[in-house]
Every structure is written in C-alpha cells, then in structure tokens.
C-alpha cells in the first residue's frame, strides 16, 4: 500500500524544467539575490589581494633591505606600516562583505523556504479529505520539512556555492596568470588531479555513507522490534537468536563504519598531499626561474615575494575546486525532493468552488438528499453499475425540514457518516444532489457552507493552545464572555474554572489530561460558539463515561440541538428518542423512518436493534 520512499533513488539528473520552477521562488527576492551575487563577486575579488599585499610587503620593503643593509630602514618601515594597516583594513572590509553576503544568502534561502512551505501547506488546506485518507500524515510532514529543506539546500548550498566557486576560480586564475603565467601553469597542472581525486573520494565516501545508512536502518529496525516485542522475545525464549541476529547487524554496521573511516582517512591526507605537491612544484620552479633570471642578468620576473604569494594562492585555489566537486551532488540531491513537492502542488483539487459560487446569508436549514449515490473510491463514476460493491450510498432520498432533528441509526458501514460528510461537502456525490435550502452544495462557497454547518465529533480535536483559543478557534469576534456563556450552557464552565489557569489552561497534545466526557462537552461549547444553522453530531464511539457526565452530555446535546436543523449519528437511546424523526440505514439505503414509537410498533429492524442496545445500556454494571 504505502510505497517505501527510501527505495526511490536519492539523486537524479538535473531537470531544467524543475530548476526553472525552483528559480521562480527566487524571483520575488531578485534584488536580494543580485545583491548576494555582487557581494560574492566583491569577496572573490578581495580574497586574492591578501597574498598580493604580502608579496608587495616582502618584495618592496623586506627583501631589498636584506639585500642592501644601507637602505633607509625607517622609510621602509613607514611603507610597511602603511601596507600592514591597509592589509588589516582590507581584512575588516572582507569580513564585512562576507558577513553581508552570508546574511543576504541566509535571508534569501529562508524566505524561499518559507514561501515554499506556505505554498505546500496552503495547497494541502485546499485538497479534499480523500487526499488525506490516501496519504499518511508522516509522508505529508516530510513534504513540508525535509523536502523543502532540500530545496533550500539547492539554492544556498548548490546555486550560490556554484556561483561563488566559479567567481573565485576565475579571479584566482586571472590574478595568478597576471603575477606569473609560467608558475600559474605549473600550479594548474595539479588542479585536474585535485578535482579528480576529490570527485573520486567523495564518490567512494558517499557510497560508504549510503552503506552505513542502510546498515544503520537494519540495526534500528531490529532495535525497535526487540524493544516493542521484548515480551514476545522473552516469552518465546528467543533471546539467544535475537542477540545473535543483532550482533550480526551490529557488526555489519561497524564494518560499514570502518570502511567509511578508511576512505575518509585517505581523503584528507591525499588532498593535503596534492596541495603540498603543488606548493613544492611552485617553489621549485620559482626558485629555478629566479636563479636563471639572475644568472642571465635580467631583472628577475620571479621574486621571493612571488614564491610566498604563489604558495598561498595555490592552496587557496584548491578550496573552490573542491567545493565545485560537491555542488553538482547538492543540486542533484534536491531534484528528487523538488519533484515530490511539485507533485503535491500539482495535485488536482477535486472539490473546488465553482466560479461565481453563491455566498449564503442566513440559512433556514432545509437539507435535501436527492437520489444520492456515493462511493469513496475515486474510480467509481456515475456510470458504475448499481450492483458494484464499492457504492457506499445507494440512492438515498432524505428531506429534512428547517429545525427538524433527525437521528441516523444503523450498523457500522451502513453509510451514516457518509451522509454527514456529504452535507459538509467533504466529498462530492457521483449521482444525485445534496441541497441546502434548495441550493446544490456544489454551487456554494465551501467556506460559507461549512460556516453554517457545524460538526461535533465525538473525539473533539483539540489544537495546541489554551482552552479558550480552542473554543473560539481563533475567531477574534468571539469574546471571553461568550465563551463562558457557552460553557455554562453546556455545563462545563465549573470544570474549566477548577483548572489552575481556567480558560487560559494550555491544552496538551490532543487534549491529553481531559476526560472523554469533558472533551465532548467542550466540543458542544465549541459548536455553540460557531452558532451554525445546521448541526451534525457524530456521536459514534461508545465512551466510558460515568452516569453523571452521561446525563450532562445528554442535557447539553438537547440544548445544542434547539432551534437548529440537527442530524445526529446517535448510539444513546435517550438521544434517539428525543429526535423528531429516526432514519434507519442499512447498506447504503434508508430502510425505515419514523418516530421512535412508530418504528417500535412496526417491529422491524429498528426494534431489534433498539432492543439490543437498550438491554446493553440498562444492564447494571
């Protein structure tokens, strides 16, 4: 069912279609991006200057004095002082530039991250419930977390680093050639070697890393199972087998790690060695040229300062070369993630507002289901034959008058919940129509519709926040007085006040700490504050509540129903008895309707169902 995502390749080739789409997210911050690029450029122009200044200091002030002690030391020192101060000033400037560019890139990346997240999250808000039925929550969370992060990495770690590296390489090559083209060419001979070595080792290390991750996953799975299934292992006396299997997995992980260490331990020294090889070549040839020039009696093109400068320039040039080897991997790694994200963004919204959909003013509260055929399976269409087992509702006709209260009764899977879901338009029907006050729900704005149709779920879903914010649901128009009034009305006010922080008490994860009964009463209060014209109550689970709470819930429910069209999926006999009409459903059809008395008198399905539940409830415990 759920395809394991780790089986998908982690990287894939650069897809320019995707790249263009990602870049569209950079567009709003074009100026920021341009600024960052300019700063990067400035930095890459400054960076090689340090070696040049050092060269100048050595060649202009130190070496001449060493060669000819008769020179004016004080004048040379003054020159040196100017150079040193200039050097320090340039260092400060360079830091300022780098700082600014880092922060600019940070802003850029974070803003893009924020925008993509908002887009994905916003898209998910618009997608129909069936999308959530189909996709596990964990997968959706991955979309808005690690996948979005990968795109951020694409921009900051990939593109920016690419631009930065290219700039640096260009300026270094240019400056080195200008200082001494012969030495430059000699030092460049190591570059391809460096690039190749970096690529080679990075490839090996990535592979080693992939292996350690796989082995780690095996170890973690076994750990997890042996913790969750610890008692099973002990009951079946399987400790030795588990320990043996685990030791094999644990040793494989160790071997994978050691293998990875071996590549790592080769990589750093190899790169350092190549660096020193370049230095040695440069130093040797520089000295050689210097000797040759002097022997020839010409003004030396190569100086002591050149040697020193080249040693540094050569080493500094290696960094961007190495970075470049990484950039393409970063870019590729983001491709898979961005594809998954765009898949979400491109998902078809099946339940949308029709253009020019009507807004609702006050509702009377009439509800009509006209020959409704409905299935959750998206492959079922209006043309699917009537006897297909996938149909959930099979030609339901139900007409509810304003202010009427209707109880839906039937076994699990009879289609009760589907009826309520269709009135809220969580799903669209395949055949027939659902109408509210005579308007087809598909012609109304979803928001509007749902603001008038309140839903009370048995399991009140509490959001992280205070009790008050959970009741008002963030609607600023709801006052504290109204909240308290609603809570008094359903009889939960005293309980809330007994909490240390009253209405400002923080609700823990999914309302842990509150009892089922209290949660249900809060759900009623929440529905009252919304003041819907039609209310749907899904009273499904059989909760273990004490008699007193049970009575409170009954009373609260009666009050919530007053003056509204109410459709209730009820299991409590007293609730059912209190409704104007009882609709009995079976296998997607309405089989009986009428008042409690009428149906009992009929002695049909309802009467037996009722007898069963009634005796169940009245049994003294």
């Amino acid at each position, binding site marked *: 069912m759920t395809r394991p995502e780790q089986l998908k390749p982690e990287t894939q080739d650069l897809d320019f279609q995707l790249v263009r789409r990602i870049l569209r997210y950079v567009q709003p911050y074009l100026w920021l991006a341009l600024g960052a690029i300019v700063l990067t450029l400035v930095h890459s122009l400054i960076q090689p200057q340090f070696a040049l200044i050092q060269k100048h200091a050595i060649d202009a002030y130190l070496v001449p004095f060493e060669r000819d002690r008769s020179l004016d030391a004080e004048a040379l020192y003054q020159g040196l002082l100017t150079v040193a101060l200039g050097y320090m000033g340039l260092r400060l400037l360079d830091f300022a530039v780098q700082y600014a560019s880092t922060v600019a890139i940070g802003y850029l990346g974070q803003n893009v991250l924020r925008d993509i997240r908002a887009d994905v999250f916003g898209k998910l808000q618009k997608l129909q419930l069936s999308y959530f039925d189909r996709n596990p929550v964990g997968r959706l969370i991955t979309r808005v977390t690690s996948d979005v992060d990968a795109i951020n990495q694409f921009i900051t770690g990939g593109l920016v680093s690419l631009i930065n590296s290219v700039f640096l390489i260009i300026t270094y090559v240019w400056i080195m050639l200008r200082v001494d083209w012969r030495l430059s060419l000699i030092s460049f001979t190591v570059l391809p070697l460096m690039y190749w070595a970096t690529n080679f080792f990075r490839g090996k290390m990535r592979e080693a890393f992939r292996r350690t991750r796989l082995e780690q996953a095996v170890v973690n799975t076994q750990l997890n199972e042996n913790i969750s299934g610890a008692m099973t292992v002990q009951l079946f006396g399987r400790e030795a087998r588990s320990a043996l299997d685990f030791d094999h997995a644990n040793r494989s992980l160790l071997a994978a790690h050691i293998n990875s260490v071996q590549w790592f331990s080769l990589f750093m020294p190899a790169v350092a060695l190549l660096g020193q090889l370049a230095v040695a070549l440069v130093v040797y040839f520089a000295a050689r040229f210097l000797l040759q020039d002097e022997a020839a009696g010409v003004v030396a093109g190569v100086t002591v300062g050149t040697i020193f400068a080249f040693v540094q320039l050569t080493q500094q040039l290696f960094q961007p070369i190495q970075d470049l080897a990484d950039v393409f991997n970063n870019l590729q790694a983001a491709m898979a993630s961005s594809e998954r994200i765009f898949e979400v963004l491109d998902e078809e919204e099946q339940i949308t507002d029709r253009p020019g959909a009507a807004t609702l003013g006050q509702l009377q509260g009439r509800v009509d289901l006209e020959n409704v055929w409905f299935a959750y399976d998206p492959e079922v269409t209006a043309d699917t034959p009537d006897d297909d087992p996938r149909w959930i509702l099979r030609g339901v006709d139900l007409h509810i008058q304003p202010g009427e209260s209707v109880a839906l009764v039937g076994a699990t899977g009879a289609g009760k919940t589907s009826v309520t879901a269709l009135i*809220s338009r969580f799903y669209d029907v395949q055949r027939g129509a659902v109408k509210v006050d005579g308007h087809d729900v598909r012609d109304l704005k979803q928001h509007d519709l749902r603001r008038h149709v309140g839903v009370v779920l048995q399991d009140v879903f509490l959001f992280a926040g205070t009790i008050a914010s959970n009741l008002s649901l963030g609607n600023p128009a709801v006052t504290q007085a109204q909240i308290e009034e609603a809570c008094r009305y359903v009889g939960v006010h005293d309980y809330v006040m007994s909490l240390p922080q009253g209405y400002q008490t923080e609700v823990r994860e999914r309302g842990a700490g509150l009892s089922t009964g209290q949660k249900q009463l809060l759900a009623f209060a929440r529905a009252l504050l919304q003041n819907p014209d039609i209310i749907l109550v899904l009273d499904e689970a059989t909760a273990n509540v004490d008699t007193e709470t049970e009575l409170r819930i009954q009373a609260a429910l009666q009050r919530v129903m007053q003056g509204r069209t109410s459709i209730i999926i009820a299991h409590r006999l007293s609730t059912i008895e209190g409704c104007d009409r009882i609709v009995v459903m079976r296998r997607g059809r309405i089989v009986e309707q009428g008042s409690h008395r009428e149906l009992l008198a009929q002695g049909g399905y309802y009467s037996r169902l009722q007898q069963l539940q009634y005796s169940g409830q009245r049994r003294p415990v």
Partner: protein
Amino acid sequence: MDRNLSTLWAYLYRHRRQYLIGIVAVTLSNAAALLPFYFIRLIIDGLGARVQGGSLTAITLSQIGWYSLGIVLAALVSGALMLIMRRQIIVASREIEYEVRRDLFSHLQTLDKAYFDRSRTGDLMNRLTGDLGSVRELLGFGSWQIVNIAASFTASLAVMFALSWQLTLVVLGMLPIIVGALYVLARMINARHTSVQEQNSVIAAKAQENFSGARVVKGYALEERELADYRAMNLELLRRNIALTKVDGPLRSFATMLLGLAFGLVLLVGGRQILQGGDFTVGMFVQFVGTLDRLAWPMLMAGWITSVTQRGLASWRRLVELFDARPEVARVPAEAVRPVPVAGTVDFRNVTLRYGDTEVLHDINLHIPAGTFLGITGPTGSGKTSLAHLLTRLVDPSEGRVELDGRDLRAIPTRQLRDVIGVVPQEPFLFSDTLANNITFGLEREDLPAIPTEVSVLDVPAPPLIPQKPDEDQVRRAAELAGLAGDVEHFPQGYATLLGERGVTLSGGQRQRTAIARAIAREPRVLILDDSLSAVDTETERRIIEGLREVSRGRTVILIAHRISTLRHADTIAVLEEGRLVEQGSHEELLALGGHYAELERLQSLSSDVEREEDGDPVAAPAPTLAGGTP
C-alpha cells in the same frame, strides 16, 4: 571519579592501545606538518643570501630540488600519520559504539514487562541512537580534537618561539582574545541552534496536528487561520534562523579575519625586526606566518570542544540509566533446578495482584486440571489478561502464588517455564522476518552461541552465521491448525514471504492466526489464547477451535474471549469482574445460573439476529461485551 565516568573509562581502557598509538600519531603528524614551511624558509633565505653574499651560489638548484622534495615528503609523513590516527582513534570510537550497543541490547533483554511498560519505545530508541552517537562523537572526533589542539598549539608555539620570541609574544597576547571570541561565538551558536530546533519542532507539530485533524480544520472552515498560524510560525523560524546565520555563517571568515589582523601585527613587528638588521630573516618571517596559519583550525575547534564534551557526558549519563535498570521479576536461572516433565496443572492460590495502588486481581483461586480447556471472560479491565501475565511470569503476584504441577512458578527456571507455555497475546507482535521464521519463532535457541558482553570487539571473533532453518513440515502443520494455510497459498512466496515494512502487511485476522501458529508450533503443555480470535470470522474461528481441540488433547488450554460461540467449547468457563472471580462452571451450568454469562449469551444471540438481517455478511461485527457496550 564518579561512577558514570568509570563505566565509560572501562570501555576506553579496552581500546587503550589504539588510543595511545593515535595520540602519538597526532602529535608527530602535527610536528611533521610544520616542516614544509621550514623548507620554504631555507629556500627563500638561500635565495636571499645568494644575492646578499655576492655572486657565488649560497643555494644550488639541486638543493632547492631536495628542499622541494622535503616539502612533499613532510606532507606525506604528516598525512600518513593522520591516516594512522583516524584508523586508530576513530575506528576505536566506532568499536566502542558497537560494544556499548551490544551490551545495552543484551541488558535490555533481561528487563521485564514492568520496565518496558514504563518506558516509551521512542525514548529508548533515542538513547540507543542519538545519545550513543553523542558519546561516540566525544570518544572519536572529540578526543582526537582535544589531542590535536594540544599537539598543534604546542608544536606551533615551540617553532614560533624558536623563530622569534618577540613575535610569539605578540601572538600569545592575541590568542586568548581570539580563542575567547570563538568560544563565545560557539556558545551563542549552540544556544541559537537549539532555539531553531525548538521552532522546527513546533512547526512540525503544527503540520502533524493540521494533517491529522484535516476533518476538523475543514469542518470548521479553519483553513485560513491555520495557514496564517503556520505562516507566523515560519516567520519566527526565519527570524531565529537569521539570528543563527548571523553568528554561525561567518564563523570561518571571522576566524580568518582575526588571524589576518594577527598577521598585520606580525608583519609590523616582524618587519621592524628585519629592518633592524638582526638575525631575523625574511625566510623566518615566512615560516612564522605559515606556522601561525596552521593554528586557524585548532582555534576554531577549541570553541567547539567544550560543547562536544558536555553533550557526550550528558548522553553517557542517560545510557548509564539504562544500564542501571533492573527487572522486578527475578528470573530463575536454568541451573537452579533440574527440569522435570510437566503435566500442565495450573493453580492460582489466593492470588492478588496490585499495580501501585490499583488492585487488578483480588484473591483469585482457580484450579485448572492438566489437559482441560478453560474459558475466561469478563468486561474490559476485569483482569483477564493479568491472569495470563501471571502464568508466564511477566509479573509476579503481590500476594498468593501461582503453581504449575504444584510447584510455585518462582521456583521453576524461567526458561523452562516459558518453554512449556505457549501464548497468543491480544495484540500479537510479529517480526519483520519470513512467515516461516515467525511461526517457528524461538524454537532453536539451544544450539546458538551466546554473545559475550563487556569485552573488546577485537578479542571476540564474529559469531558464525547460523541462518534460521525452520522445519517446513512443522511450519505447515502449525499453519494448517491455525487456519492460516489457505491464506499462505495466495502469497507468491508462500512461507518465505517477508512480513512487515519491507514485505506484506497482514490483515488483523491473519496476524492473529500467525500468532496462533507460532504458539502451536512450540507444542506447549499449556496454551494461552488471549482474545486471539476477535478479528477472525465465526466460521474460521470454529475451524481453528476444532483444530485446537484436536492437538490440545492432553494439553491445558486457557482461552480468553468475549464471544459465547468461542467460549461454549470450554470445559469450564470463569467469569471475571473487577478483578474478582464471579462465576465458574460449564456453559450449561452458567446459563442455568442466569448471571452475567447468561446475560452475555442473550445479548449476543440478539446481536447475531441483527447481523443475520445484514444478508449474511461473512465478516462478523464485534460482539458486545459485558461492559455494556454496543456494536
């Protein structure tokens, strides 16, 4: 040294050789890494001296060639030593990680149900992965860096001092400022990093809440508010991330700048020395600057090392907590008593069981003769499962005793006790392994080598690879009895089918029947089925029960169930309510008694009438229980 550290020391001590070699290698490597600049100095000074000295060569081309070769050789030696270090210290840290994981695993195997009930799997996993990782980082990267910082500072400063004590004093004057600044930055980065992580968790929690509550969000038309909330949270994340970037992003360039400023000063002071015409040469200046440059990385690391150490030690304390956990149910070792054949008579004598202040079972007296079939029923929370737990010694009674063949369970070797009892738990736990291996789970332990603990991995050869070889006939027989064989025929790989995440997902009924097959395959003297047929339809249930009666002739069967159709086959039925034994007798006797059992029977026949109205749907609806629930 406190106990936490001494336990960690024990692991380190077993790898002392690797650490010693590694430390020596790091020290030498740092010294060798300083040589290239020494050669560069020789070349530069040679070139300078040549001109100064007139026309004769103070340095020849071949000398330059040798010095250049020296640069490469020094790098080679330094690199080789660094390689040795990594292969000693880093490998040792990985080996210790393996050993700690191995020892923790085997320790966890000795802990009892009470412990696993108390601790959350996520928390245990966190400790075994995250905390262990932090400890390993301290032992590997951390200890390397500590040595590295010490060695590189010592070597560099020694060289620098030899070159010019005045310049070294300038650097020493700046060092505390640089290291101090980097330390402060590292602390700020840590704090801000934590605050970013916290906000990330908040955002992930919001997404989790929103996606799982999609029905409510849509039902109350909260989409816009949710999006606004989410946006606000992300804005806060952006703020925190930028705050982090401000201290974290330019860390390296900050260190470079500080070193650059140091260079400026060195240039001034060193230049002055050269211009004074002393012994200080340009070559020495270049060597000094080059050596100073090598301090950049250790200085950066010095800021980090405290947090790596703190984190590692805190994590080790959490691991020691795991090591310190002890089971409440004391196992009886196998050697304690000689195993005797078991007939299968079970007795509960005045058994009371309390969890904390709550009494779960109260003064239970129950005699189950060998070879009989006992049914147990009662509402949720009435203590049925606790009876099963007592019998397998997952818990021990608070008062009274449980006996097998007249012997107190606490006197029977735990291994032998569990060998003769087969359990099918309420929610069977199956492993990500083949179906056959799941069915013959735990049937071959005798021949397996034990994994030694608290020894170095270097001293223990890898245990032989002994794949599980399930007896095919045994597997098939058990599967047939459990009513699973028919399903397996539809699996392309039959009994070799892999279960779990990477394999097939079994339905609830298939899981239960696999668990039944697993218990039957052990051919236990006492078989306990804890509500194990709830997800199986009535027809299959009937077949399984018949099969069970067939194999269990001569075995004691204890069956916990809600359905009368399941229970009626039992020789005796015990009804529990709120931890007390309220009714006991055969199906007919209890019906005649007209008590709880009779009431349950009446409700269920009514319920099945209603179900029959549903056109003979083969999947049974959940039966009403004594708790007074509804279908």
